[in-house]
């Protein structure tokens, strides 16, 4: 396509976007949804399979109680009603990623429905309606071979690994979100971010977009003000938070250019391309497969005990948004300072460091300073830097006890990141402890005074600032392992000067 895209502000001045999001979350249960095969990420192909998840004749599924509980907890955290009685359904389709030729899902009886999630965008709360939260099974992974590119077009055959087939998958569908205007892309991103944080706080999934345990489809349409909602497209393959925002924006621009040229939008699935930020058409919805849903005969209905649901509700953790606000107050941070903590992905790390005994200020200093700098340099996530909150708290404890000064502490921290052991071990092994032996220090001070008589005279005559040079000399002989303030006091004492 060679058409020039219109400017974004012109698009939002003329059209109103309506967005909607479908998010799939792989649950972090020990076992799959219908069988006892393990769910760990990775693994050699077809090593985590059994007759049930391979769909072999005669095998029967039995629902994983932990997955049911996790789904209900997600629903409750999203303010949903929980079904008093619901069933699984067969979604029939012909594709080898499910060996049964159908996927067990839920159709018109989702486990959780009609909720909402409040997200913060530009300091304002936006309430996102949740249509449904239902439970289904993940598919196997197909590898297309024989073609030149490894993609499905041009491939002659597919190789299938069923390790992922049958892993519990929760689908969370929003209600259509109108009225966000120019902020639509940001709202979409803020929603997925908040949803990820909520699910992580529940401890039911590791929600890693890069590993595919959180996946997102984005629906977008445009309409003229006062008119009916436009035809929507569904963009798949949106695999990062940044891509969620880009996908909405690029689809708004594309649809506007089609409408401006007098064209009409085709209801279709589109694929997002991470490299270009564009979407390209997939299969048209008009030829959509008829899934022939019907109640799954091999699984009995679920009827969650209301008392149990109430218990789960009462035990929900604090919402991440409220939790963050509470931490911000406890740590005494401005909005801007809290934002840098959030941007660095350091909230939990600082929280755990404080829990391990460090002051909020010290914890923030290490994680946002030295450790963030190293994370940026090496391109790893802060949480994967190699230092744990407990180690950072231990390091700060050594500083507080006067055993390390700031410079030595940074050297020790480098050792921690390099995997040399705990801060105390590194300090001892590398002999980095502050020289606190007054005898040794006094000798170093006397040596410095003797070597710099002119400076010593200046200090004696009251020019206290000149003592800095002597402090420097002592720090040099002790290889930085002295407390500068102690050295300074010793020098001034020795020269009978007042500080």
């Amino acid at each position, binding site marked *: 396509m060679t058409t020039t895209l219109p400017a974004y502000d012109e698009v939002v001045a003329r059209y109103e976007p309506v967005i909607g999001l479908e998010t*799939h979350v792989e649950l972090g249960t020990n076992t799959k949804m219908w*069988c006892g095969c393990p769910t760990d990420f990775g693994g050699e192909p*077809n090593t985590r399979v059994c007759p049930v998840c391979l769909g072999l004749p005669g095998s029967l599924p039995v629902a994983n109680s932990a997955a049911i509980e996790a789904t209900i907890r997600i629903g409750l955290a999203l303010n949903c009603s929980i079904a008093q009685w619901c069933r699984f359904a067969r979604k029939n389709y*012909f594709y080898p990623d*499910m060996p049964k030729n159908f996927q067990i899902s839920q159709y018109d009886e989702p486990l959780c429905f009609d909720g909402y999630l409040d997200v913060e965008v530009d300091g304002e709360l936006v309430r996102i309606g949740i249509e449904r939260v239902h439970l289904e099974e993940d598919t196997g992974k197909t590898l297309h071979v024989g073609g030149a590119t490894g993609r499905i077009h041009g491939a002659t055959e597919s*190789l299938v690994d069923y390790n992922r087939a049958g892993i519990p998958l929760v*689908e969370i569908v929003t209600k259509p979100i109108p009225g966000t205007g120019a902020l639509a892309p940001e709202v979409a991103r803020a929603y997925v971010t908040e949803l990820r944080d909520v699910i992580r706080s529940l401890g039911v999934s590791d929600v890693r977009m890069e590993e595919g345990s959180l996946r997102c489809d984005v629906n977008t349409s445009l309409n003229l003000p006062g008119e009916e909602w436009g035809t929507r497209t569904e963009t798949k393959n949106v695999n990062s938070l940044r891509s969620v925002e880009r996908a909405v924006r690029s689809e708004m621009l594309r649809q506007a250019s089609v409408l401006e040229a007098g064209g009409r939008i085709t209801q279709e699935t589109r694929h997002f391309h991470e490299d270009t930020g564009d979407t390209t058409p997939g299969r048209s919805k008009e030829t959509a*497969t*008829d899934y022939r849903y019907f109640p799954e005969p091999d699984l009995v209905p*679920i009827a969650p005990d209301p008392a149990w649901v109430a218990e789960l509700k009462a035990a929900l953790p604090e919402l991440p948004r409220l939790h963050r606000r509470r931490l911000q107050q406890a740590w005494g941070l401005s909005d801007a300072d809290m934002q840098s903590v959030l941007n660095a992905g350091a909230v939990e790390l600082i929280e755990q460091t404080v829990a391990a005994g460090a002051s909020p200020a010290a914890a923030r200093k290490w994680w946002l300073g030295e450790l963030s700098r190293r994370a940026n340099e090496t391109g790893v996530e802060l949480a994967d830097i190699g230092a744990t909150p407990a180690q950072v708290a231990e390091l700060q404890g050594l500083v507080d006890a006067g055993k390390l000064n700031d410079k030595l502490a940074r050297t020790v921290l480098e050792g921690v990141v390099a995997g040399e052991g705990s801060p105390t071990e590194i300090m001892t092994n590398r002999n980095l402890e502050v020289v606190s032996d007054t005898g040794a220090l006094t000798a170093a001070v006397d040596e410095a005074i003797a070597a710099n008589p002119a400076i010593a005279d200046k200090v004696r005559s009251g020019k206290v600032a000149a003592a800095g040079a002597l402090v420097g000399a002592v720090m040099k002989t002790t290889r930085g392992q002295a407390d500068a303030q102690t050295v300074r006091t010793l020098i001034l004492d020795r020269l009978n000067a007042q500080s």
Partner: protein
Amino acid sequence: MAAISREEVAHLARLSRLAVTEEELDTFAGQLDVILQAVAQVGEVAAADIPPTSHSVPLTNVFREDVVTPCLTPEEALSGAPDAEEQRFRVPRILDEDVAS
């Protein structure tokens, strides 16, 4: 009036990836019609106060604990496959299809 049309049978055959000839379409449409008519008779006796039944056994909440059980070996898993490569099931390419979920 037939309970299922020839076109519906053709549609279902396509969804199931069954190559059905024109002659077979006539045969199957007729046979399926007989089956559906028979099933429809049950619907005639169902009064408004009888809820539709999806499960013959009145059970709910049959769950298992989230405990790992032994898997098949890859050799066992692939033993029934018509073809395999790189320890994966090898199947003909499928185009123009959506994937689930």
